[in-house]
Every structure is written in structure tokens, then in C-alpha cells.
């Protein structure tokens, strides 16, 4: 009986499938993807709920030392009271926004120039070499960037760019080792620029040739034609690439944790130029730092609240990236 059943099942699979069964099977696979995404959202929100319950949205505000608050949560036991959830995570949010923002500000102009170069001005041989080379930059694992940062850039900044007098001056505020905003933002910029280059070159290559050629035929300089026709046409794609790169930058965890110093300090522009060397911590880095302590309910709920915030902002950014690109569709310039 058992054997005949398995033989029957085997037979059903082996024989040519009827179309409706194939459709249902493939549809079920697709639904599984939807289910996984829903499970992600539900799981993370469910575990983050206590923080929202006790703190509302005020945990995003400022006040106190967030490192100490997270450290205190370790020891609040298995059934912590409402006060154990006290959290003011503004320094982490600020650190995340600051690194991602600076990285995009550095990366976007470079990416735009490099894309124009690749699509319009590079000789064929240079282009054939440049594309895989830049693509490689995007596929280097983030831990290698982190390693280079922590073993090469951080000591360099600490020994050569920060003077001893500045270290002494800041000693009472924060310790300057070289790990901090500057190194993190530069490495992040290197990581996200290839992504922007990929998106912008794709859009630029999709601009109909005749548009630019028409402009040149009207007597425009080739460079001017590129700027005033091609680049103008893909402005939405440029914004979208910046938005998607921001989403990528917000989520970078391990590299930032390695090179940004593990102090939840908010770099203050009012400190002068030394501001770029001040350490910071991002939301993602805080997750990496605290995942060992997930047994403490208060800490767990805070860490999942960080994850929920990151998930939500990644979602919001990809939606806005999509919305920004909508005008391109109307003009049939795919990007």
C-alpha cells in the first residue's frame, strides 16, 4: 500500500503536468515569498512592540546616554517593569542619518560624472575596462572595507590628521582615535557610488540617441548637449539612484561598526573641523553590538525597535525611489 502510494505520487510528478497544476504550484511558490515578507514585518514589529508600548515614539527623541541606557537593560531581569524600557535613541538616529547623508553627498556628484564619462565620453576600450572595474567595487564584501578602514584608514587619521593638542582639548568630551564619522562616510561613499553609477548609466544609456544627436545637429557643443538633453532627461533617475543609495547606506552594519568607533556620541558641527573625526554609532551598528544580549526582554525589544525603524525607512525609501522615477515612464525613457 505504502509503496503504491509513493509510486503514485512519483508518477504524478514525473508525467507531464496539467497546466492548472503548474500554475498553482508556481503561484504557491510566489505566495511563499509574500508570506516570508509578511512574517518579517510581523515578527519584527511583534518583538519591538514593548518598546513602542512603554515609550511610544518618544524613544526616538534625545536625552541621556543611549549606550548607558542599553547597557542597563542587560540587568533588568526576565520580567522588567515599564521603567526598564527607558530609551532615548536620538544619537543613533542622528549618526545613521549623518553618515548616510554625507556618503550620498560625496558619492552622487562622482557617480554622475563617472556615469556621463562611461556612457558618452569614454573611448570604447576604456569603457570596456571601466565597467567591470567599477562593478567590482560594488561586489567587494563590506567586511573587507571594514578591515581596510580599521587597519589602514583609522590609524592614519588617528596618527596624522588629528593633532595631539586636539586630542587633549577633546579629552573630556570624547576620545578621538581616528575611528569616526570621516572614515565611515568615505568608505560608505565608496560602497554606494557604484550602485548609483549602475542606475544612472542604465538610465543614460536608455535616452534615445536622436535626442542628443538632434541637439548637436542644432549646433550645440557635445558636452552641452549631454548636459542639457541627456542629463536633463534622466533627472528623476538621478534622484532615484540617490534615494536607493541612501537606503543602502542606512542599512550598512558591520563596516560602520568596525570603523566608526563604538561610542554613541553625536558629532557636533559646532566643534569645528574636528567634527568629522568624532566617533558615532548608527542604528545598524547598535544591533551588531547588542545582539548577544537578546535574552534580556527590554534590550531585545529595543534592538527590534531599531530593526523596525530601519525596515520602515528602507521601505519608505524604495517607495519614494519608485515614485520619483514615474515621470520617466511617461516619456518612455526607461530607467
Amino acid at each position, binding site marked *: 500500500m505504502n509503496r503504491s502510494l509513493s509510486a503514485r505520487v512519483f508518477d504524478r510528478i514525473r508525467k507531464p503536468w496539467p497546466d492548472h497544476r503548474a500554475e498553482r504550484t508556481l503561484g504557491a511558490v*510566489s505566495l511563499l515569498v509574500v508570506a516570508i515578507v509578511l512574517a518579517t514585518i510581523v515578527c519584527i514589529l511583534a518583538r519591538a512592540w514593548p518598546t513602542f508600548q512603554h515609550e511610544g515614539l518618544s524613544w526616538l527623541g534625545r536625552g541621556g546616554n543611549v549606550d548607558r541606557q542599553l547597557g542597563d537593560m542587560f540587568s533588568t531581569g526576565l520580567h522588567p517593569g515599564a521603567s526598564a524600557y527607558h530609551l532615548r535613541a536620538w544619537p543613533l538616529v542622528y549618526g545613521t542619518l549623518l553618515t548616510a547623508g554625507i556618503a550620498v553627498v560625496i558619492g552622487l556628484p562622482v557617480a554622475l560624472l563617472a556615469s556621463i564619462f562611461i556612457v558618452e565620453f569614454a573611448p570604447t576600450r576604456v569603457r570596456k575596462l571601466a565597467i567591470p572595474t567599477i562593478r567590482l567595487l560594488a561586489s567587494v*564584501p563590506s567586511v*573587507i572595507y571594514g*578591515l581596510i578602514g580599521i*587597519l589602514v584608514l583609522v590609524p592614519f587619521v588617528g596618527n596624522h590628521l588629528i593633532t595631539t593638542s586636539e586630542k587633549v582639548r577633546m579629552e573630556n568630551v570624547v576620545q578621538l582615535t581616528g575611528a569616526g564619522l570621516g572614515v565611515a562616510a568615505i568608505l560608505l561613499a565608496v560602497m554606494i557610488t557604484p550602485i548609483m553609477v549602475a542606475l544612472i548609466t*542604465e538610465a543614460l544609456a536608455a535616452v534615445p540617441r536622436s535626442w542628443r544627436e538632434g541637439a548637436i545637429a542644432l549646433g550645440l557643443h557635445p558636452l552641452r548637449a549631454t548636459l542639457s538633453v541627456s542629463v536633463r532627461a534622466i533627472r528623476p533617475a538621478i534622484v532615484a539612484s540617490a534615494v536607493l543609495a541612501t537606503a543602502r547606506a542606512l542599512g550598512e552594519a558591520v563596516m560602520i561598526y*568596525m570603523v566608526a568607533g563604538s561610542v554613541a556620541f553625536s558629532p557636533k558641527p559646532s566643534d569645528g573641523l574636528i567634527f568629522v573625526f568624532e566617533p558615532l554609532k548608527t542604528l545598524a551598528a547598535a*544591533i551588531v553590538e547588542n545582539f548577544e544580549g537578546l535574552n534580556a526582554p527590554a534590550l531585545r525589544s529595543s534592538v527590534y525597535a531599531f530593526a523596525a525603524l530601519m525596515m520602515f525607512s528602507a521601505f519608505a525609501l524604495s517607495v519614494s525611489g519608485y515614485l520619483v522615477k514615474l515621470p520617466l515612464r511617461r516619456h518612455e525613457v526607461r530607467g
Partner: protein
Amino acid sequence: MSSFLDASGVAPPPCRPRRSSLRTWRWGDRLLLASLWAAGLGLCAISAAIVLYMGIRGIQYLRPAMLVTAPQASTSQAGSGGFLDPIIGTVLLTLIGVIVVLPLAAGSAFWMVEYGRPRWLGRVVESCIEIVAGTPDIVIAIFGLAIFQTRLLAPFSVTAEGGGVVGRSFIAAGAMMSLIALPAIYTATRDGLLAVPAHMREAAFALGKTRIATIRRVLLPSVRSNIATGVTLGISRIIGDTAVVLLMLGAALHIETQGGTPVLNLLRGTGSTLTSYVYENSPAGEGGAPQKAYAAAFVLLVFVLGLNLLIDFIGRAGARSTGLSVGVAVV
């Protein structure tokens, strides 16, 4: 690479039908052109510098014996062994990830393009893949911890002495790695399918084939190279990922098995990968063994370079390669 940098001073041939000399350009335009070249070649130079630097460090510190010896607990860098276990871990995670993700990604891509009914459901599936693509790996990792710590999935992971479910194992990490690779494989398969001309399907239908037979006999063979590109991209994302490994395999560098069944104990056990080995041996982790970290990072970079070359090779071999967009669009 240096020929690149030398070339930056030389005027490029302006892409204009009639030849025009750079001398007639306005100063602002010349400056702009120079910055275009500087940006393009600068990015290439950074990439080359990273590869060169890691290459030099790798040759300096990598010893062939490291590839075949297991990590040892030691205070000195000379005695801390090699990274056989991390290499096995990387390969194992990649295998699990690809085995899990391939049916998921390819199946939903085929459903999306070939069936996609009802329309709204198709749009939901598409948006869900977008969400997965946009979700940071650390969030995927911490979701993995949450889901594998539930009682239901306890058999798949390490159980602590007190009966608490730790939620860490190769299976758990591999399942989460499949999410990391999902968008790349899905996008590559979907784009391949969309590029198959409609008349191929129509010809198959005209011969009396059903949709699924068309998929199996006509479409699958013609998008095989796209799927291969997607899988290679996915693999390079899996082996480069650190966050999932750190959270879901833990900090132990050794492979630690769990239970008695031969293969299952490995899958349920924990260990490390090259990325977590690099992390743990860097000053950020506990072991201060930068030489070992450099050597392992070099091996990792060689893997990634190899996969990149493979993508180019598949792209060239595949008839329907679209050059720039296949590889770059899905970074």
C-alpha cells in the same frame, strides 16, 4: 591600471561627427571634461588600489598551509592555525542558500511572467521582492533570529542547555542567506524571460504545447544563462555577507556539530565563514590577529573576483546578454 591614469591627461576623441579640436573648447567645458575623466578613472583607481593592496597583504601573509588547517585558540598569530573551517562554512552556507532560493526565485519569476494572474497578486509579489531587495541584511539577520528561536523551528538549530532555543545553525543562516540572494536571481530570471521574443511562445502554443510544457522545453533552456548569472550574483552576495553570519552562526570559529546524525549534525551545528573569520580576527572582534584577517580577506576577495569573472563569462556566453545592464543593474 597605471596606463589609465596616464591617459587622463590626453584628450579623448570627442564624440562628434565632425572632428573638433579640444583647443576650440571653452575653459569651463575643458574643466568639466577633465572632471568627467577624473571621476571615471578615479573610481577605477580606487577599485584597483583595493585589489592591489589586498593582493600585496595576501601574498605577504597567506601560507598554503592556512587553507587546510583548522583555527586554533592561541594568543599568538603564529599559533592560531588557518581557516579551513571558515572556508567549509562559506561553501556550506552558499550551498544551502542556493538550494533554498533557486526554486523560490526562479519559480516566482516564471509565475510572474508566464501566468501572473490575478494582476493584483502579481503586483503584490513584485513589491514583496522589492521589499526583500531593499531590506538591510542586518534586519534580515535579526528576523532570522526571531523566527528560528520559535518552538516550531527549534529542531533546525542549536538548543542551549537549559532548553532555550538559540536559533543559530547552518540551516538557519542558510535559509536567511537565501533571502539575501533572492532579488538578484529573481530579477535576472524575470529580465531573461521578458527578453524572450513572443513568437517563440506563440510557436510553441501553435504546436499544441501547454504553458508549462513551453516553460520547460522552450523558455527554461533559453533563460538558462540568465539564471546562471543571477545565481552567480546571488552567490557573491552570500559569501560577502557578514551580518547574517555574525548573528546566526555566532562567534565560534570552529565548526561545532549538534546531535549525532552524520550530516544533520553539521547542518544543525554552528561555525564560521570567511567573512566572520575576518571580522573576528580584526581589531573589532576579539582576536587581534590582523595578519590572519588579511590572509582570509584576500582569499575572500579572490572568490569574489572569480565570481565576477564568471558573471562576465556567462554574460558573453549567453546569447541574450545585454552587456551593461545584466550585471550592474542588480548590485
